[in-house]
């Protein structure tokens, strides 16, 4: 059993989570709340120890961007007598008055519906301190009734702040009990009883908030590379074997899917997400030439890198890539070849405008931006940072290269251009950050193209030189590699939520267009197969062979359990919009299964 499993609340039932203060209960319930919102299950959040605004900040820090599914009962402000500006979607209650709590929850439930709501109660401690054992009556007469009507409740309770027997009485009412404690560097969750699973003990390391660098290092330390699979991947990357990873469909995916997933994911965090992609691509650029990866590189590259320090010492290769003529050898050579192999674009080094320590490149037919003409944002997120990372790696990390786009198809230019410099770029942050409205616009643009393809059979992508497909490598970067590298709860959420919203949007549009349920699903599946996302079979379950989200994750064996975050979100959103059904991931290629599978519930 994993942490992820217990973070998924049952369809109905009252779960009591107890633990000493600081054991991580609130963080746990925030994660549960976010996951629920990602699955489009509405959440009523009763807060007794913080203002809703503080909870929102915390949730946003974990990746929450859209809060329409989230309703608050503020039982903090009134209880402590804080004067706060009234917030829409918030109802106030007083911990001293259990009636006011039940009334406030009931009123919020009028908005979320009679069933399928998740109620997060953080925490019961203060109502208990005010009302004593009457709280048991509240649990019995209100909360368990609420739960048994088809809702789920996660209620927190501090251990040691009241009488043992009162806590015992509260537990006797609950359908599930979990106890949390921290021991040294371990967070231990004891599942004492649970409606969905057998009792268990789960241990998770207590981690400092990961930075991209520290997560990447953690990722590298967990890495277990299977040489055979890695060799296949390298064959695939270099274009020698175009179906090394996916024997049946091949290792290329329609670039529309790459863009669609990326911008759907971006919807959740337009400000932070692009910077995250940038950093991860940069780290990965350095990593691709690192000791760990060297054995798997093509022999010429391997040889070169092994003797690189010697060649540098002899002056055959420069110690630093400052001069224009030195960079020209890279730009026209390996960089362009690599970009073409994976069909990310066609690269040119612009020696006329480049200067010492200021290099300019042009990408023609950049897969990141192709077709998204003049949407009002720079969008190249794969090649430039990846190259900057590689360059820092080749210079043995003496200097840190950065890059910023100066021209972009997304800004209305006919191609993309970027500048690379061996220092920080002050405008980079604002260049990467996107306005939510811009991301919405880009997503809408993609949606329109998708609808035109589905309903009017218009072409999806028309890229004259490199064709419509792109290699799994950039796809991996969008789907999973950054997630793995980040150890990333946050990235995973963005994928799930982005997928869910996108799937729902597609489903709603097709139903609005007058398609019947089965036709709508069939059309979307045939679109996915057209994009070479995978090979599908739907009967009682949904199966995908060679799913592009998980197929390439097997090269780094760091995942346990299902990890098709976007696909799961997308299918769930689609099925809930069209058929009012939900899907649950049960098998995954990344976890060693031969196909990915979802139950329909």
């Amino acid at each position, binding site marked *: 059993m994993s942490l992820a499993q217990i973070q998924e609340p049952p369809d109905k039932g009252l779960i009591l989570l107890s633990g000493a203060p600081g054991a991580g209960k609130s963080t746990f319930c925030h994660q549960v709340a976010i996951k629920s919102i990602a699955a489009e299950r509405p959440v009523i959040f009763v807060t007794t120890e913080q203002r809703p605004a503080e909870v929102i900040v915390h949730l946003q820090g974990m990746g929450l961007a859209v809060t329409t599914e989230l309703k608050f009962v503020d039982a903090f402000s009134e209880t402590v007598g804080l004067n706060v500006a009234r917030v829409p979607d918030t109802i106030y209650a007083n911990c001293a008055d259990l009636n006011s709590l039940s*009334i406030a929850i*009931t009123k919020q439930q009028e908005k979320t519906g009679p069933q399928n709501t998740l109620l997060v109660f953080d925490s019961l401690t203060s109502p208990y301190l005010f009302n004593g054992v009457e709280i048991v009556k509240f649990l019995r007469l209100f909360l368990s009734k609420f739960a048994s009507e088809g809702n789920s409740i996660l209620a927190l309770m501090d251990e040691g702040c009241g009488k043992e027997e009162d806590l015992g009485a509260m537990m006797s009412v609950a359908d599930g009990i979990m106890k949390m404690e921290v021991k040294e560097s371990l967070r231990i969750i004891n599942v004492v009883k649970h409606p969905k699973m057998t009792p268990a003990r789960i241990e998770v390391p207590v981690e400092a908030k990961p930075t991209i660098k520290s997560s990447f290092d953690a990722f590298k330390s967990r890495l277990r590379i299977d040489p055979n699979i890695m060799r296949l991947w390298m064959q695939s990357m270099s274009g020698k074997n175009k179906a090394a990873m996916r024997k049946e469909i091949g290792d290329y995916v329609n670039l529309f899917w790459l863009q669609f997933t990326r911008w759907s994911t971006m919807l959740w965090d337009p400000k932070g997400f692009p910077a995250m992609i940038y950093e991860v691509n940069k780290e990965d650029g350095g990593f691709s030439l690192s000791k760990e990866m060297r054995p798997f590189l093509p022999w010429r590259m391997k040889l070169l890198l092994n003797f690189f320090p010697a060649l540098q010492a002899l002056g055959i290769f420069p110690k630093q890539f400052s001069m224009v003529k030195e960079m020209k050898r890279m730009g026209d050579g390996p960089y362009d070849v690599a970009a073409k192999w994976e069909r990310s674009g066609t690269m040119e080094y612009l020696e006329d405008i480049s200067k010492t320590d200021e290099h300019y490149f042009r990408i023609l037919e950049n897969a990141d931006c192709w077709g998204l003409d003049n949407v009002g944002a720079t969008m190249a997120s794969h090649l430039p940072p990846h190259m900057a990372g590689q360059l820092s790696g080749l210079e043995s990390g003496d200097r840190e290269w950065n890059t910023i786009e100066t021209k972009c198809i997304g800004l209305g230019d006919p191609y993309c251009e970027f500048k690379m410099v061996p220092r920080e770029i002050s405008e980079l942050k604002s260049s990467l950050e996107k306005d939510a409205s811009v991301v919405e616009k880009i997503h809408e643009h993609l949606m329109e193209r998708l609808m035109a393809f589905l309903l009017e059979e218009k072409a999806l992508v028309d890229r004259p030189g490199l064709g419509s497909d792109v290699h799994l490598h950039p796809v991996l970067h969008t789907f999973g590699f950054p997630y793995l590298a980040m150890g990333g709860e946050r990235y995973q959420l963005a994928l799930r939520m982005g997928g869910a919203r996108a799937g729902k949007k597609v489903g709603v549009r097709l139903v609005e267009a007058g398609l019947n349920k089965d036709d709508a699903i069939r059309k979307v599946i045939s679109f996915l197969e057209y994009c070479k996302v995978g090979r599908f079979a739907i009967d009682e379950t949904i199966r995908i062979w060679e799913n592009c989200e998980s197929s390439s994750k097997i090269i780094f064996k760091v995942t346990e359990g299902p990890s098709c975050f976007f696909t799961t979100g997308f299918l769930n959103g689609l099925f809930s919009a069209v058929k009012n059904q939900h899907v649950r991931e049960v098998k995954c290629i990344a976890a060693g299964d031969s196909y990915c599978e979802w139950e329909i519930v």
Partner: protein
Amino acid sequence: MSDDYTSTGITGADKILGEKGIPRGHSILVAGGPGSGKTTFAMQFLYKGATEYDEPGIYISLDEDPEDVKNNMSKFGWDLGKLEQEKKLAFINVSPVRVTSSEKAGLIQLGMKEFKLIKLLEAIREGIDGVQARRVVIDPITIFTLQYPDEVERIYAMRDLIADFRKTGCTNLLISELRGTGLEREHQFEEYLAQGVILLRTVMKDDKYTRMFQVEKMRGLEVDNQPRPYNITTSGIEVYPTLTVFK
């Protein structure tokens, strides 16, 4: 809702009244302590009746100045003056205290003897005819009963009043003070005569109020007679028919 029943217009209260409302033509005693929202309850009954069920009403004030009542109710967004102009609502002031206040001698109010049941009934009938009323509120009935120091006389007067209402077909609320708060209280004779009794109670414990709505009696109707929490919100009284009262 069928024509045999009158919706209370109070969110949640009809659900407690068997999803029906008050049987038409019945006289219901609404008893509550100070600040429990009795007048609000009564005005909401009239206001919703006039605006949502096309049932005009009259408010017979035995105590407060109708103008004050109108002003007080504007905080819920109810424009009672407008309803009055549209002849959907009438205010009748038969406050004996006010009429005779200038003729006060010592503790005895001289006008008191003038206030006869017959006059009150006349005023009510006129009011009902004036707006074709289907709902009537007498606020508070306590003042009326005070006119009859003799208990037998008082019971007869009350019985006549209720019988007269029955004839008009109007559903009416008789507002009364609740003597004694909490769960122990004395029963008032009006409770035996009225066809229904609704209690609005506020229980104070430590430093917090608990408001309880309870239908103690409702002749001819299966009701939920458990106390249920209620609230006075910005849009009037709301009763929560599925919730339990916690002390």
